[in-house]
């Protein structure tokens, strides 16, 4: 290839996602830009918003990529700027120190795309993230943006669009997995105007950041998807509901709407085809339940964010009682690709009942935490061990929790499970919006259930009795168990209340809330029994049910632990063995942390 040509094309991408920004990536961006401008060479420096950890490397940010060679640097500091420009940008020399270490291969790789983490992924919803500047609409257009809208407006009828989406097999990515095409058809068939389209960006699951990264990193793809949906169902007004904590997402989305309107993709008579559409951002107030579609609509209307009964679909009576299509961010972002590449292409990806890909936020005790997009049907083992790089540290895998706070915990024996909407439901977990939390053996499953129930008890809207009172009482029982006050009949009682909450609750939050309890009892009943009968916590997590002691064979009597103990529970002579007085020990774990020899042990059983 012509060297001159390559120089012209050279682009430096600096991740300006939330995670990297926090690590000073904007200074790096400014530094690189200034340096290159000073040198007056023909190299473009563009800030690229790559959402937190979208390539699993948020923890290794700030990230700088140099195109077209795809040299991938992580952990970049402001002081590295000169070196990057002089060596890599100008002289094509790779700086070994800044390259990404692929733990699966055990060596450094020049491009992130060579890593195992990247190879098993397939990016549809995340196709542009990290590749474009979300603030620059031309970047999006350059990569084929708004061509799907053009295709739809010039070549397709609304009915044609709907049948294309139906044939693609796309199911809503927000949690329930309702077929998107069917939803659109139901709404399109309503002879009642105005109609509304809504984008749900109220991502509230702890540890999830799928929608956030798309809104921050590729807002135009969402807009384009919504425009296509609006054209298909005959709507002229849309809303994007974004939780207020996502300030960068709100900023980028707002800017995208402005730019799209400037270019005539929004507003009156779009592309001269007689289709008009406007969109508005609504900022959510921070209630988890407002991610539920009917509660979200109530919130947009300015009412209390409580769900309503859904026997009449929102496609018939939604926002202000009018036909409404509501899909989540990821679903909308898939639409332009489906239109461009066709339903046939899309439906060949994924598994039988779940077509396409799914974005997961892979977090917890895995080596590579971050955002991944994989074809559905991929096994949990592939996700956790190939993409995630396995368990961090020396621990063993214990369970993976999918689907947000009301998802279920899946044990090791089911790691061969192909991940899609139906398979996860079958084992008692769910897809949810795509949270995936990996736990190692130092996790107490009773405590995990307690943690999620605590979250849900605070986030339940309290409207219907089974959810409000049921979750409260289940939490009460679990708290008792974790503090050694569990009773023998409690497991059955938990299951009994679970049935009521699951079957009788009004909305999706309640119907799924018992999942953490049901699945942990199903797969880890032993741990429950240990808590109740033996009054001990096998994982050594529940404070009241554990005891700290010093292994006499390992201790060399350095005395560090005694210094670290806040309650003077440790005694002993320097050089001899130290002991812990269990009556004074508050189980804070300071001694365990301090000990260099790993002599402090936690016994999952109360003192005799």
């Amino acid at each position, binding site marked *: 290839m012509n060297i001159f040509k390559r120089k012209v094309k050279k682009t430096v991408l600096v991740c300006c996602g939330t995670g990297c920004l926090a690590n000073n990536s904007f200074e790096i961006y400014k530094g690189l830009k200034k340096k290159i401008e000073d040198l007056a060479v023909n190299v473009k420096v563009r800030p690229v918003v790559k959402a937190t950890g979208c390539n699993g490397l948020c923890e290794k940010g700030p990230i700088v990529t140099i195109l077209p060679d795809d040299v991938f640097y992580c952990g970049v500091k402001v002081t590295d700027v000169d070196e990057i420009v002089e060596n890599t940008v100008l002289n094509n020399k790779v700086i070994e120190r800044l390259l990404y270490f692929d733990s699966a291969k055990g060596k450094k790789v020049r491009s992130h795309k060579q890593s195992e983490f990247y190879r098993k992924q397939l990016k549809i919803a995340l196709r542009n993230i990290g590749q474009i500047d979300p603030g620059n609409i031309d970047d999006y257009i350059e990569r084929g943006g708004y061509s799907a809208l053009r295709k739809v407006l010039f070549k397709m009828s609304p009915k044609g669009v709907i049948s294309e989406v139906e044939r693609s097999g796309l199911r809503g990515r927000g949690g329930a997995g309702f077929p998107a095409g069917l939803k659109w058809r139901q709404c399109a068939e309503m002879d009642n105007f105005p109609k509304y389209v809504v984008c749900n960006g109220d991502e509230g699951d702890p540890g999830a950041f799928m929608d956030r990264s798309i809104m921050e990193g590729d807002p135009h793809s969402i807009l384009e998807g919504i425009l296509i949906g609006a054209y298909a169902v005959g709507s002229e007004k849309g809303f994007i509901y974004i939780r207020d904590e996502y300030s960068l997402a709100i900023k980028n989305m707002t800017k995208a709407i402005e730019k799209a309107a400037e270019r005539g993709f929004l507003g009156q008579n779009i592309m001269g085809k007689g289709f008009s559409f406007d969109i508005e951002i609504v900022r959510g107030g921070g*209630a988890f*339940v407002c991610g539920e579609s009917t509660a979200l609509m109530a919130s947009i209307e300015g009412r*209390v964010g*409580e769900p*309503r*009964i859904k*026997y*009449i679909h929102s496609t018939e009576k939604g926002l202000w009682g009018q036909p409404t299509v509501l899909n989540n961010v990821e679903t909308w972002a898939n639409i332009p690709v489906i239109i461009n590449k066709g339903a046939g292409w899309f439906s060949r990806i994924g598994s039988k009942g779940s077509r396409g890909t799914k974005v997961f936020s892979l977090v917890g005790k895995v080596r590579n935490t971050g955002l991944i997009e994989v074809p559905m049907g991929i096994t949990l083992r592939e996700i956790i061990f190939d993409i995630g790089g396995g368990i961090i540290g020396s621990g063993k895998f214990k369970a993976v929790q999918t689907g947000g706070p009301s998802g279920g915990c899946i044990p090791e024996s089911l790691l061969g499970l192909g991940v899609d909407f139906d398979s996860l439901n079958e084992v008692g977990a769910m897809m949810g919006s795509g949270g995936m939390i990996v736990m190692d053996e130092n996790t107490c499953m009773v405590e995990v259930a307690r943690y999620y129930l605590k979250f849900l*008890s*605070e*986030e*339940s*809207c*309290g*409207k*219907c*009795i*089974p959810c*409000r*009172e*049921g*979750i*409260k*009482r289940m939490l*009460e*029982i679990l708290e008792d168990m974790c503090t050694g006050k569990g*009773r023998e009949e409690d497991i059955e*009682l938990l299951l*009994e*209340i679970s*049935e*009521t909450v699951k*079957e*009788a*609750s*009004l909305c999706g939050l309640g119907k799924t809330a018992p999942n953490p309890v049901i699945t942990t009892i199903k797969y880890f009943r032993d741990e429950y029994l240990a808590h109740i009968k033996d009054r001990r916590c096998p994982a050594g997590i529940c404070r009241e049910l554990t005891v700290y002691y010093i292994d006499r064979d390992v201790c060399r009597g350095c005395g560090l632990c005694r210094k670290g103990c806040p309650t003077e529970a440790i005694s002993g002579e320097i050089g001899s063995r130290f002991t812990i007085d269990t009556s004074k020990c508050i189980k804070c774990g300071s001694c365990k942390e301090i000990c260099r020899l790993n002599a402090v042990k936690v016994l999952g059983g109360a003192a005799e």
Partner: protein
Amino acid sequence: MKVMIDGKKYDAEYGEYILNVARRNAVNIPALCHSDALPGQGNCRMCIVEIVDKGRKSIVASCAYPITGEIEIVTNSERIYRIRKTIVRLLSASAPDNEYINRLRKEYDIPPETRFKVDRDGKCILCGLCVRACDEIGVSAISTVNRGTTKRVSTPFDEPSTVCIGCGACAYICPTGTIEVNEDEGRRVIWNKTFELLKCSECGEYFITREQYEYIKKRYDLADTNELLCDKCKKKGIGDKLTNVLHNVIPVQK
């Protein structure tokens, strides 16, 4: 159209709620948050039933499920009974002084609570009827506050409401008598606000707050009327008028 309830066929109108059809035909379905005046709440979930619709089984709240096809309904299966029983138990642990719930407790044969902390000494079961009634009247003086287990019904910031008209509809519709209304010497106190009561111009009994009177006049555009009659006297007046009319039409024969 026809629906099957517990093995028997009944007539139902399109869009009618299951509960209505059942009650019309004396099929008992318990419900706490249901009022014929304000149907379709669906909060208490006591009225759940099992339905089979085109071969698909599901559990739905009968008070809000509209009949749109020939479905089969089971109101009293073992599963439904078990779930209702758990709901009553959960409720009574949180509202132990609620007489209505206590009656249900006996009906479902639930022993005194020994497992849960019986913590709330109130009677409110948060059925939401009061809030709904206030909304329907068009005043919206009360609302639910907070979320989840800390949820309760109150006025904004627990202050005496600036918009409350003291009509007492919330207390009237409350199934458990939780909302306090105190009346004496021409005054009514509700939701921490004191209202002046007006007398019926006919019988002289106190019966309406000034705010409520003004509200009704404004809402129904009755600016010119100065009539101030209580329900009893109004009925009596209508009765008298009717008697007069009847007398004129059918002359009384001597």
